[in-house]
């Protein structure tokens, strides 16, 4: 196992976090290969979102390790984790409503991240090109100069995904990317994710089993902070433990 470790993009081992004695994540281990699409499913309160919080540094682990491309993330600050190549989308779309779509993407562009850098930052051709190309990917080319606050719910979700893409992360973490979307938006998002997954490692939390089946290489089922089952979508669907706690009802 140890010899293989270096090949994993992300290795989570023995990860535990306890909130006042309640273990939201309990001795969790899983591994992601480069370019893998992994979906985490599980009932409410299983600790799915907490796992993403732990990886991106929003919540601090009580014990365990998260190794990402040879770096230990549990000791790093949030912005350092981003610079290491981890991008995270939140469940509720969090975009900058007072800024335009263009500015939202520009702020996420990986350059000028220090105070002085942000003062000296110039909107050059490379920036404009990157923003426009991402805007096209996320279907927002026509909204570039609109304030993000005026976008629909689905468009905000796309914008936030675009804000991650422009950072060029090695690992993308998406928390319920199609929640609250219309059927049409869902279809477009699936299309978008298929494009994204061509050249990123992606970790997704999702409830929609149809959607999960469409995109996942492997599925991790969580229950009460632990891994209940792991494998292909067919494998977990037939796992009696999974059927009992999750898929059965």
């Amino acid at each position, binding site marked *: 196992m140890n010899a293989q470790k270096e090949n994993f993009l992300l290795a989570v081992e023995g990860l535990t976090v306890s909130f006042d004695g309640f273990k939201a994540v309990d001795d969790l281990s899983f591994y992601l290969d480069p370019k893998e699409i992994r979906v985490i499913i599980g009932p409410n309160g299983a600790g799915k979102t907490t796992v993403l919080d732990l990886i991106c540094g929003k919540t601090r682990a009580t014990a365990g390790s998260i190794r990402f491309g040879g770096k230990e993330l549990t000791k790093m600050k949030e912005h350092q984790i981003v610079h290491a190549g981890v991008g995270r989308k939140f469940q509720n779309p969090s975009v*900058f409503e007072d800024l335009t779509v263009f500015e939202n993407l520009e702020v996420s562009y990986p350059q000028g*991240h220090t105070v002085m850098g*942000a003062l000296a930052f110039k909107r050059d051709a490379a920036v404009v090109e990157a923003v426009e190309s991402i805007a096209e990917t996320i279907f927002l080319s026509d909204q570039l100069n609109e304030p993000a606050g005026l976008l629909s719910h689905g468009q905000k979700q796309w914008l936030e995904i675009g804000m991650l893409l422009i950072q060029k992360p090695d690992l993308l973490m998406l928390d319920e990317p199609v929640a609250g979307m219309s059927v049409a938006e869902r279809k477009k998002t699936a299309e978008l994710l298929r494009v994204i997954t061509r050249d990123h490692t992606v970790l997704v939390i999702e409830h929609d089993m149809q959607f999960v089946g469409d995109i996942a290489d492997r599925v991790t089922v969580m229950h009460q902070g632990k891994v209940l089952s792991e494998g292909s979508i067919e494998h977990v669907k037939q796992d009696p433990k999974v059927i009992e706690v999750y898929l059965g009802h």
Partner: protein
Amino acid sequence: MKTNSPLQWLTSREGIYYLLLALLLVVVLPLLLDPFRLNMVGKYLTYAFAAIGLVMCWGKAGILSLGQGVFFGLGGYCMAMFLKLEASTPEATKNQSTPGIPDFMDWNQITELPGFWQPFHSFSFTLIAVIAVPVLLAFIIGVAMFKRRVGGVYFAIITQAIAAILTILIIGQQGLTGGVNGITDLQTLMGWNIRTDMAKTTLYFVCVGLLFLSLLVARHVQNAKLGRILVAMRDQENRVRFSGYDVASFKVFVFCLAAGLAGIGGALFTLQVGFMSPSFVGIVPSIEMVVFCALGGRYSLLGGVYGALLVNAAKSGFSESFPELWPYAMGALFIGVVLAFPNGLAGLYERYIMPLEKRLPVIGKYLDKDKPAPQAPPVVSDQLSAEKP
């Protein structure tokens, strides 16, 4: 936002607003007002520096500081210390038991100039200290608070406490600071009598010049990517953090910027008014500065300037006729702003006057070709709590 040349900028909508303010401050007011009234306008303008700082810090970045009086006061005290030392020559103070030290020290049985007063013999040191001392204190507070993720209402309360502490400290250390009376009886700046009408008018123009310089610096920050990050932080602090920014360092920066601007204002206040006292440091002046900023429009730099001018003019007018009523009027004004027009005068202007501009002959058409830069975001209800969940 993109301007190719200064001339192009001056003929844009934004440039015209700056020109109108310059016209008012440089031409109209000096022609209309006698030196006494002009000096008062100069005094109001020193508060505009603090208001500009608050627009950046509170309006843009969402960090409400109720302690800007601290930085205003520190800048003012630095200047006052220099002027006091200049006024306390051995000849001028030969009747004291220790000639050559400021009079209030002598009254408090201090026989030697304290060490921290020594550097204020130098004018260049003083000019640096006017900005550096407030910025340094803001830096220490900022690092201590923002790195620990203290924000919103908690931060506001802490800044207010600091304002109270500094006032108490100044009043308590009478021998070192002049106590409750402050540092008074300031006469000359490098041998130049600052009490003549001519000097006061000159200082007024210096003040206006520095105000425009400060406006341009603040505008530069606002229009750089840094400015957009500040606004982004106000909306979604976490999203900024998880876009790879160290949010705390940006907050420290903007808080230091606001402190430095307030410090410049304080120094100019001392020069134009001729004394500095703890009554310009404490909680009340700090909150008044927030009112100037809120009334003018906390998202608009020029709004901050007009807010400082109008509220202070109203204060003087009111206090001259009904001194006891002013605090109530001030309170009513603040409540009115919060309830009725949370974006202040700048917001009112954008909403009601800007649409009328089109009807003007010539000018309307001219302004119309120039898209208005949306400064104020949609009305937000959480006016006082800068914190968002």
